[in-house]
């Protein structure tokens, strides 16, 4: 079943068209990554989906409801972690969670929320004393308080140290395993690739690539890279190659086969392909290619 549907969404701010007719769907229980450079329109899309802004054109449905017109109903079943939102700096972490529990029907116990976000040890610290990464964790704790069916996470791990980020990934995976639908934006492509089952890449307000993460990357094949001896003409190689930052790169549907072909060719000529690396396509390859167009 579809949890989130976006169909032909347009949204402008003061004459600037931030989102230009995008469409995508997120299945129930799926983790969906919305990717793009700064200004691509990701946050505007999340803000429309979370009911903060009304779509100029197109339709948006979250759990079958219009998030702007039915904001109260949608809020009961969604959690939102905004990219930018303030806290009350004088309240402690525990008091902040306790206060937010008062805004939530049947909230998680305070200790459970703090533990989920890894903030138990910081419960008595005032919010103004938290680091940027800790504030993101508090953000996550608040978004999870109401046991939402759909979770919007805008740059959820920005500012977190590697350990906290790994812990946040575990929490996000566990939530998805419980059937919660998660739409996240991130600048960390490895994060998207590790977590998300599907993705869409946005650029200048449009979706330039989308689909299941595994299928999309598998369809792109992979690459073989190596350092070609200086006296060898790249044009003499048995496969088409490009030279990228001093490395000779061969993009191929089956990178293992391409590597074998190249190594056999080199062995026959007594050449050494130094630093040879074979890897499948990554989200970064796709992202750089699509968002650079």
């Amino acid at each position: 079943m579809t949890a989130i549907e976006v169909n032909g969404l347009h949204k402008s701010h003061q004459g600037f068209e931030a989102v230009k007719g995008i469409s995508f769907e997120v299945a129930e229980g799926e983790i969906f990554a919305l990717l793009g450079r700064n200004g691509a329109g990701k946050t505007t899309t999340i803000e429309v989906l979370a009911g903060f802004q009304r779509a100029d054109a197109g339709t948006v449905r979250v759990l079958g409801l219009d998030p702007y017109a039915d904001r109260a109903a949608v809020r009961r079943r969604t959690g939102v972690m905004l990219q930018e939102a303030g806290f009350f700096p004088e309240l402690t972490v525990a008091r902040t969670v306790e206060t937010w529990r008062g805004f939530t029907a049947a909230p998680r116990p305070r200790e459970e929320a703090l533990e989920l976000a890894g903030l138990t040890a910081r419960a008595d610290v005032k919010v103004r004393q938290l680091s940027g990464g800790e504030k993101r964790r508090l953000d996550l704790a608040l978004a999870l308080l109401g046991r939402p069916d759909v979770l919007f996470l805008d740059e959820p791990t920005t500012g977190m140290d590697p350990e906290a980020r790994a812990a946040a990934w575990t929490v996000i995976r566990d939530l998805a395993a419980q059937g919660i639908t998660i739409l996240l934006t991130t600048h960390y492509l490895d994060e998207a690739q590790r977590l998300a089952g599907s993705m869409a890449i946005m650029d200048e307000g449009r979706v330039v690539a989308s689909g299941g993460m595994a299928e999309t990357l598998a369809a792109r094949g992979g690459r073989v890279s190596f350092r070609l001896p200086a006296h060898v003409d790249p044009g003499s190689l048995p496969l088409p190659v490009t030279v990228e930052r001093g490395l000779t790169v061969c993009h191929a549907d089956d990178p293992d086969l391409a590597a074998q072909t190249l190594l056999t060719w080199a062995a026959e000529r007594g050449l050494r392909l130094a630093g040879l690396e074979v890897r499948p396509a990554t989200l970064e390859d796709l992202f750089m290619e699509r968002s650079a167009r």
Partner: protein
Amino acid sequence: MSLTATYRLGTRLFWRDKAMLFASVVTPVGLAVGLPTLMRYVTSGGVANAAALAHSTIAILLAITAFMNIAVALTGRRDTLVLKRLRATRLTDGQILLGQIAATATQTMAMIVVCTVAVRFSAGVPLPADPLAFAAVTIAGSVVLSLLGAAYTAAIPRAELAAAYTMPVFLVAGVAAGAMGPIPLPAWLRPVLDALPTTVVVDAVRTGELLTPVLVLAGWAAAGVLALRLWFRWEPRRS
């Protein structure tokens, strides 16, 4: 339940903000108790003049503890995106604003009661003859001024300008109610100043007449609600 939560939050934050406490509590209470006490003992006007000034200073409490405090608090929370975060919860816009307005109005009412009792002892100003009427009009005044302060945030471009933007309101409210002493004013201005919500509360406390003040306050409340609906901003302007 959620309204209670926003009310409690508003109350907690009112007393936590030490910088604002000086402006919202210490200064107006100092004026509302100090001026009538000075009037009683330093001038020859006696208790009558002290009582008149004590009534006038209710306008100062309303302008500062209700109007200025809520305007500064909401503008600050708007600009630091705290209001946006509150809107990410299940709270409705009405619950967020109403809880804050009720909390500010309660603190204002508490200050008015404290000052009324304090000037009874410090300057011999008699307690209100009709406590129920006094309570009704000061509660209504506190709510309306808190509501208007919330609506006024739409006119304040940035949080750091909030106190400066509310200063003219404080001065006009104080002058109109006579809390700044006898200031000569053009005759045409008097009816305008008499229609201010702060002035009608002071007049009602002074005369005991309730009908006209309540109608005027209802008009201001309607204007405040309309302004909130039309112009209230939950987020800072996008540059």
